[in-house]
């Protein structure tokens, strides 16, 4: 629920303290769960820290994994301002990657910067239109946006499979049907001095832009009014239809861009690898950040760290790679359970004399 008035200091402390408490509880539960598999909890936590944040190498790994989450989280966070629960970021991500790869293939031979811009535009547009469809179905047909966005994920994946196994297939890709490679010349570079691609920087910039849009423009203010009280918004004559379509378009454009980055900086072509669950983890990131665009940045890095440590847990402790999925699910459950604490913590109030 968006709060329009400036928050008192206590509320801000609560907004950080309660999710942190939920996170610690989930880590404790996960430790107990792993203890049943014969893993010492403290070794587990030590390895998780080491794998996610213990060295420059693991930090880079973490930031690479956080990059798509920054953008897929916005797919849930932006519509949340309107009071909508959209969970279809995975579909927009997949289609954004596919559209970007198609654009690169179509423009083969052009200048690298032009091709990259076209790829980004294709990704933004494909993802944006896909989720705008969710908004339109909600606004004009009353279709529940949570269910329709999730159904669209499966349709998007079917489209990806259809195109990479048929019309867009590279005849050379035998084991794993893929589009032709976009070519090394068109790949996104790394941020100088690191192994982290520019996609991470894009993600941070887009989150900041989303913050400015939502909290410092009339458009964003109107959206939050709709989310706070749709009836009041109608009474004061806000263009609800345009707000819903605009916000859902932006919400889809963000994961669409993430899909483009995945193709242009990591995979080099579009194929089934795109369906990696970044969209689903993004939902969790958005909820943990309480749908605040700036809150998404640290939370995405934290979740990136958890998934970066998955490989180490697998190698050193013999835990299945789904261990990080279990942890994510547990965090999510604890977080929702912790909602009950809001307004109940007796925090020292900062009062003016």
């Amino acid at each position, binding site marked *: 629920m968006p709060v329009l008035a400036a928050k008192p200091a206590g509320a801000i402390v609560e907004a950080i303290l309660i999710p942190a408490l939920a996170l610690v509880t989930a880590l404790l539960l996960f430790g107990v769960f792993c203890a049943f598999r014969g893993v010492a909890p403290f070794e587990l936590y030590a390895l998780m820290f080491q794998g996610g944040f213990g060295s420059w190498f693991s930090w880079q790994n973490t930031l690479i994994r956080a990059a798509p989450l920054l953008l897929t989280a916005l797919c849930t966070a932006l519509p949340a301002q309107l009071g909508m629960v959209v969970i279809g970021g995975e579909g927009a991500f997949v289609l954004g990657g596919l559209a970007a790869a198609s654009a690169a293939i179509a423009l083969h031979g052009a200048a690298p910067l032009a091709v990259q811009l076209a790829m980004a535009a294709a990704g933004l547009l494909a993802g944006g239109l896909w989720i705008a469809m969710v908004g339109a179905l909600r606004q004009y047909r009353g279709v529940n946006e949570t269910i329709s966005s999730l*159904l669209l994920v499966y*349709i998007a994946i*079917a*489209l990806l499979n259809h195109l990479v196994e*048929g019309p867009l297939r590279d005849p050379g890709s035998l084991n794993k049907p893929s589009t032709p490679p976009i070519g090394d010349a068109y790949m996104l570079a790394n941020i100088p001095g690191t192994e982290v691609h520019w996609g991470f920087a894009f993600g941070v910039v887009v989150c900041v832009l989303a913050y400015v849009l939502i909290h410092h423009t009339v458009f964003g203010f109107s959206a939050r009014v709709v989310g706070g009280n749709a009836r009041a918004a109608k009474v004061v004559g806000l263009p609800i239809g345009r707000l819903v379509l605009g916000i859902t378009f932006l919400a889809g454009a963000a994961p669409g861009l993430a899909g483009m980055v995945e193709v242009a900086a990591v995979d080099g072509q579009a194929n089934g690898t795109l369906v990696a669950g970044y969209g689903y983890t993004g939902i969790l990131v958005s909820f943990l950040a309480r749908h605040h665009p700036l809150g998404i940045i640290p939370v995405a890095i934290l979740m990136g760290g958890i998934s970066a440590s998955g490989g180490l847990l697998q190698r050193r402790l013999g835990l299945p790679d789904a261990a990080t999925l279990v942890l994510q699910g547990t965090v999510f459950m604890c977080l929702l359970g912790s909602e*009950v604490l809001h307004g109940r913590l007796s925090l020292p109030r900062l009062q003016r004399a």
Partner: protein
Amino acid sequence: MTDVALGWWGVPLALLGGAIRASTPFLFVSLGECLTEKSGRINLGLEGILVMGAMSGYAISYLTGSPWLGVLVAGGVGALLGVLHAVICGLKRVNDIAVGIALMLFGIGLAFFLGKSFIQPAAPMLPSLDLGWWSGIAQVHAALQVNVLFIVGLLLAPAIAWGLRNTRWGLVLRMVGDSADAALAAGYSVNLVRLAATAAGGFLSGIGGSFLSLYYPGSWNERLSSGQGITAVALVIFARWQPMYCVYAALLFGAAGAIGPALQSVGVTSGYYLFNAAPYLLTLLIMAVTCSPKRALVGAPSELTISK
């Protein structure tokens, strides 16, 4: 028995076979969700429960050699996850849709984690009844292999419809779903009734999941469920919260899922993946046609988050 070349006649036959074979998970999950939603709560986590049911059913069948014990345990696991959903939703200020999403991620993650070691071995499968014995045509014979769970589901639907209409339990459930205040005034605990309804829904969804791993497609792996759980939730809306309509909708969806393989068998191979998306597309189209932004749906429990 002869393998007759049926040509295009094979397509409607394959759709019938698909309706019988693939509809069972849709049927169980949608009946379960129907019960849960009648109590005024929506459980979007059935996808996670379905996958947990599939995994635990398969694991128990492999470990004990009894597929029916597997079905029972799958139902029990589903009921436990349903209770978890209900307990968290029972807290103040907690949104049931968000808890559903969390449960979906949690269930799928847990199933992949615990099920890793059951991907390879082969577990005993559920038996099927041979209702096509009278036909000499192999395709007809194959289409009419009917699983017992399918028949149980078919009988369960009218039983639930009757129970909702004619029993004290059914009345209380519907009252809680239509007006929590009225139920409270009548002295019923809203949370307790919803807990029971969500647990029952989870039980049925778990059984639906065990059908996936123990009969059709009949193995356990991480790509087993492709959204049947979430489709079934949408299907309840389409069925207007009426158990009998759930049956027709489930049959329709089972048939829609068989379009791809059926067309492939007569030589139409292009667009195989697109035809596989038919159930999702169909759900979306049906929701777009039947929903309306102006009014709540006819028959929707008025305490439901999505009809408020």
